[in-house]
């Protein structure tokens, strides 16, 4: 990177199933004011405002234009970003590009979804090609259900392993005041929940949440002068996968899968040989439990097919040697536009030791956040405590 970029502040709303008390811009404004407060900055010090959400999910286009007042964007440069479920993270990537380029010093990145307001099933079907598969649009559940059935058939994992992931996520969420699904559940509760699309049950799947997240980025000089605990963005990786080819749900596929390829690329950039030792915390994008097990393998935390053994042994618990999603993850909070940004922000909180009751006990110097969507278009971001980490 031309210039170093730091996260100097951030904020999020208390994510919930219902937010009837606020309209879209008011909800976003909550996260923005929290971020400005956290960074101890005023809106006038922000050079650029980038905003993101899932396109048309709330039944309104050009949400950036409709939110100028609540975002403090009047007269300022900035664009809207839409990259599907990854958008929260790609907005931070875009923000980092703005700062690293040397053209701007301080960028406000905002991501949100007021999911209850829109017809997400209908709009999501618009992601499918109109002439190839839209009539059969399986929704995210069908998608990940196929991944789960492929995983179980190939590696011999059981439904209990999926339940273990569901339990870990919601029990972690109970320690996170901002999380949506704070559920005191056990494996039996998951296995008794309603079957949606075999093998995915209700509790194996993410919720639909209303929420927003905002993160403020700045250049090194500003970060060192103004921020007590800057968190450094050390590497980013994004990659598109080919359209039509959805066989990344087939766990035996030999084709390039970008959730795997991006991790190799980012590890090469950073000189990582053992990711489970190099990174202290992982915040990964798991809309369904099976996705998490596949992430363990795609990130090289274990061999292919061994993912379910990691969860079985508790290795990825909040107090385990490889903590994954101490925040509760997407399984506990899914305001889609914001979810990928929450992975980065929650990772930053871990580095700052500001995660409160969901802070991992071990020392945190380096984190890795991930997100993917649709065709397996993937984004990853590595953060660190100091520039020497």
């Amino acid at each position, binding site marked *: 990177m031309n210039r170093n970029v730091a996260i100097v502040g951030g904020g999020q709303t208390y994510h919930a199933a219902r*937010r*009837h*008390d*606020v*309209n*879209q*811009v*008011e909800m976003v*404004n909550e996260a923005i004011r929290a971020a400005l407060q956290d960074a101890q900055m005023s*809106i006038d010090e922000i050079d650029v405002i980038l905003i993101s959400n899932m396109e*048309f999910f*709330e*039944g*309104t286009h050009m949400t950036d234009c409709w939110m*100028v*007042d*609540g975002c*403090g964007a*009047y007269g300022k440069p900035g664009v809207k970003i839409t990259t599907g479920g990854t958008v929260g993270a790609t907005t931070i990537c875009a923000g980092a590009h703005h700062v690293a380029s040397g053209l701007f010093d301080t960028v406000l990145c905002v991501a949100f979804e*007021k999911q*209850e*307001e*829109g*017809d997400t099933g*209908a*709009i999501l*079907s*618009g992601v499918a090609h*109109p*002439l190839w598969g*839209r009539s059969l649009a399986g929704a995210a559940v069908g998608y990940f259900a196929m991944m789960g059935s492929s995983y179980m058939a190939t590696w011999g994992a059981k439904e209990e392993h999926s339940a273990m992931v569901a339990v870990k996520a919601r029990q972690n969420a109970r320690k996170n005041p901002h999380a949506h699904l704070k559920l005191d559940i056990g494996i039996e509760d998951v296995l008794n929940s309603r079957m949606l699309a075999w093998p995915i049950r209700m509790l194996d799947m993410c919720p639909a949440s209303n929420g927003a997240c905002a993160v403020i980025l700045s250049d090194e000089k500003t970060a060192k002068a103004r921020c007590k605990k800057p968190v450094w963005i050390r590497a980013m990786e994004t990659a598109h996968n080919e359209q039509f080819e959805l066989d990344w749900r087939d766990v035996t596929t030999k084709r390039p899968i970008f959730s795997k390829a991006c991790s190799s690329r980012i590890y090469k950039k950073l000189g990582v040989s053992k990711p489970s030792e190099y990174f202290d915390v992982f915040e990964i994008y798991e809309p369904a439990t099976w996705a998490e097990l596949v992430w363990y393998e795609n990130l090289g935390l274990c061999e292919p097919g061994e993912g379910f053994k990691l969860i079985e042994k508790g290795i990825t618990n909040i107090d385990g040697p490889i903590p994954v999603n101490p925040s509760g993850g997407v399984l506990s909070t899914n305001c889609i536009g914001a979810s990928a940004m929450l992975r980065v922000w929650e990772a930053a909180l871990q580095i700052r030791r500001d995660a409160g009751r969901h802070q991992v006990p071990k020392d945190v110097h380096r984190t890795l956040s991930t997100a993917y969507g649709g065709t397996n278009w993937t984004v990853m971001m590595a953060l660190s405590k100091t520039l020497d980490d």
Partner: protein
Amino acid sequence: MSEQSKQEIFEVDQHLIAHSNYFAGKMGSKFYTTLRDKKKILGVKCLKCNKVLWPPRKTCVFCFSELTQMVEIGPYGTLESFTLVTYSEPVHPRKAPFVYGIVKLDGADTGMAHFIDEVDIDRICIGMRVRPVFSKERNGNILDISYFKPV
């Protein structure tokens, strides 16, 4: 394999139908319930800018202050601009011809878009004074005002 000289052109008609539900928030709800129940129009005042904004909102677009003071505006207003729509689209709320105008209600610094009715098109002019005509059946949305007409 050689292509036929005339190839069938394949076009497919589809519809995308989505139902959304917009929540107005607390301030928006106060605006709509006051319109519906009291036939009064509210704006919001920014004390820092000394401006009254319509529609009412919780953040001032100019200075980013948090706004809380709702004030009654109108009912009379001045027509700032207007247009006569002479073609019909399925998405239009009315069949052409109809008039849209921007009305700056007394006391407000920004305008409201609405229909202008009960007036001949050649008699409409910028600067004209207008007043709202409320609907008999009001449901808590902007069409609780049916249209504006000349005073």
